[in-house]
């Protein structure tokens, strides 16, 4: 079985073959095929730039893999900022001994996801480190997007605005946890990992004021950040929170709060109340937004305070995630 060896990162023949037979084969495009130290790409006066690193374990999980995650994470950061994602650079840190077929699976997945999102990989780098110095594959990406006239950001948020989410919450967090710990649920939970730029293109209209993708730290942490930045309070309704039955029962069993679980294919969208219905309908018409729903409202009140009204009508604080999110012990 072919494995990654230190020589694959040496810059010599093996490196060359790896680039030719794997990266260029699957990811090749006119920019990448320039095969220069830097790719020349069409630009604009102002661009949006983001960078992100991916170290997920396990590499492959239900609903995705580290490659898909890297592209989605980068595309989504650009898209929720109001930019049109265009280009991505891809830097791989590989552990000696990695199975070549695993690497190929990841690269193919990157190619598929890039095609789905309509972005181009324009530059890359590969390093191989000794066994034990990294965990199989680490990926770093930089994303470049074109700025649009979409005016979004927390400074736009005002009391009275509606808080929408494009679908069920917590799926990625539970998918990874169950994979990592070998927990089996009757209906396996799939990661929601998906590029959101096409979905956002379909629902965006003036009146959409702010978008964020609630990844690590979950919906709770993202809304806390927004509430602080905007100097407003927010009220969520527990009965509106969209949960898949598997995530709900997994959370009950493990003592986890879905509001703190990671999502990799969801956007929190804050809109003017008058356009909420229209935005929701547009979301729901897209395959990635079928379960989109309104989960709460922006309110006047203590800056940064996020509250949840429970099923029974009591209100409790939804704070930031503190430390690691750990299951209970009894």
């Amino acid at each position, binding site marked *: 079985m072919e494995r990654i060896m230190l020589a694959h990162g040496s810059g010599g023949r093996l490196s060359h073959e790896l680039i030719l037979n794997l990266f260029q084969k699957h990811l090749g495009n006119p920019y990448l095929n320039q095969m220069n130290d830097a790719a020349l790409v069409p630009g604009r006066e102002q661009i949006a730039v983001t960078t992100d690193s991916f170290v997920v374990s396990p590499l492959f999980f239900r609903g995705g893999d580290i490659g898909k995650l890297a592209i989605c994470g980068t595309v989504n950061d650009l898209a929720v900022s109001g930019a049109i994602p265009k280009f991505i650079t891809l830097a791989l840190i590989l552990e000696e001994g990695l199975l070549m077929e695993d690497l190929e699976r990841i690269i193919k997945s990157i190619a598929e996801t890039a095609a789905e999102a309509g972005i181009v990989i324009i530059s890359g780098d590969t390093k191989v480190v000794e066994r034990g110095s990294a965990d199989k594959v680490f990926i770093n990406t930089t994303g470049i997007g074109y700025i649009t006239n979409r005016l979004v950001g927390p400074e736009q948020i005002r009391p009275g605005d509606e808080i929408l989410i494009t679908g069920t919450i917590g799926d990625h967090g539970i998918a990874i946890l169950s994979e990592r710990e070998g927990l089996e649920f009757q209906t396996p939970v799939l990661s929601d990992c998906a590029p959101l730029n096409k979905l956002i293109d379909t629902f965006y209209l003036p009146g959409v004021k702010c978008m964020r993708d609630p990844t690590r730290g979950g919906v709770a942490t993202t809304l806390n950040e927004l509430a602080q930045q905007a100097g407003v309070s927010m009220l969520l309704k527990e*009965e509106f929170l969209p949960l898949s039955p598997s995530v709900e029962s997994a959370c009950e069993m493990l003592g986890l709060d879905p509001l703190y679980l990671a999502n990799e294919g969801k956007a929190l969208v804050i809109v003017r109340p008058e356009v909420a219905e229209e935005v929701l309908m547009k979301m729901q018409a897209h395959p990635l937004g079928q379960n989109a729903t309104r989960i709460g409202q922006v309110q006047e*009140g203590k800056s940064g305070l996020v509250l949840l009204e429970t099923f*029974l009508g009591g209100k409790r604080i939804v704070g930031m995630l503190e430390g690691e999110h750990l299951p209970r*012990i*009894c």
Partner: protein
Amino acid sequence: MKKTSKELMARASILLTEIKSLAQSPFTIMEVCGTHTVAIAKNALRELLPSTVRLVSGPGCPVCVTASGDIDRYLYLAAQKNVLTATFGDMIRVPGTEKNLQELRAEGADIRVVYSTQDALELARQNPNKEVVFLGIGFETTVPTVAVSLEIAKREGIKNYSVLSMHKVVPPVLKLLAEDNELVVDAFLDPGHVCSIIGIEPIKFMAQDYGKPGVVTGFEALDILEGIVMLLRQRAEGRSDIEIQYHRVAKPEGNPQAKMFIERVFEPVDAYWRGIGLIRQSGLGIREEYRLWDAVQKFSLPVFDSRETPGCRCGDVLRGIIYPTQCPLFGKHCTPMKPVGPCMVSTEGSCAAYHRYAQRSVD
């Protein structure tokens, strides 16, 4: 999304109406179990109850009542070369005198979070050159699986597996609370999961000898409201019994097989409860037949001093004498990120629950 939420709300409103009509005079209820504490805070139940019904938290978070000497002892063990510590996640951030497991791990100690004792046994099988020590913390609920792991280790001759037992049992601390003059508690929400193991016989004395009625209660918001209704009905009818609300899990006789496992492997020992003190026969030690798998014997572990942190009032919180917010350290020197006392560390600790869900005024 949730089809049942309307039914839930309707049922809750019926229960709350009954609570209001029954609670004409003050009634203080202690929820013994940490999982109850979290469910009450998470569902903001206090806000829905009439002011006459007071809920106070009890000593039922196993991490919280683990003595600081026990914590220092397992930290000492975890720092030993060749030791692989397997622990439930809640222990990772619990502060010892100098550091915690998370810091030891960053310094190079081999510490793994596991979800079951089976995972810990598997680690022992996979790492024959390491000494795998499972940190046994918890009440009767978790003890049976630990007992089973020791039986398997003995049967299969897995010599590099051992358990550091800091397990505790619930009935003795209930007795202590019932005899505590400072404590003003009228009735108890008894722990649903513990009683699903031990049954109600071991806690009947609370109702019969001390006149403190109890209801073995589940962990959903509706369970808790129903438990409160059942306690108030007992008062209205002048009864003092131990009843079961959590029928779907807890049976009066408990789980005989689980009890048998506990008895085969463990024996009652005196144990020190953080903030409360030494309680006779309230801990579980590993029996002589399993001494080869008892970490205390295997590593000849020294005994560490159990000192309480100055200013920390976890002890009063654990006995329901003060609310977490009444501790001078709460939210200032003691937060979930930098916990001083154990009640702030565990997600099931009452201070952590208050801090997370209700610390700031909700207005």
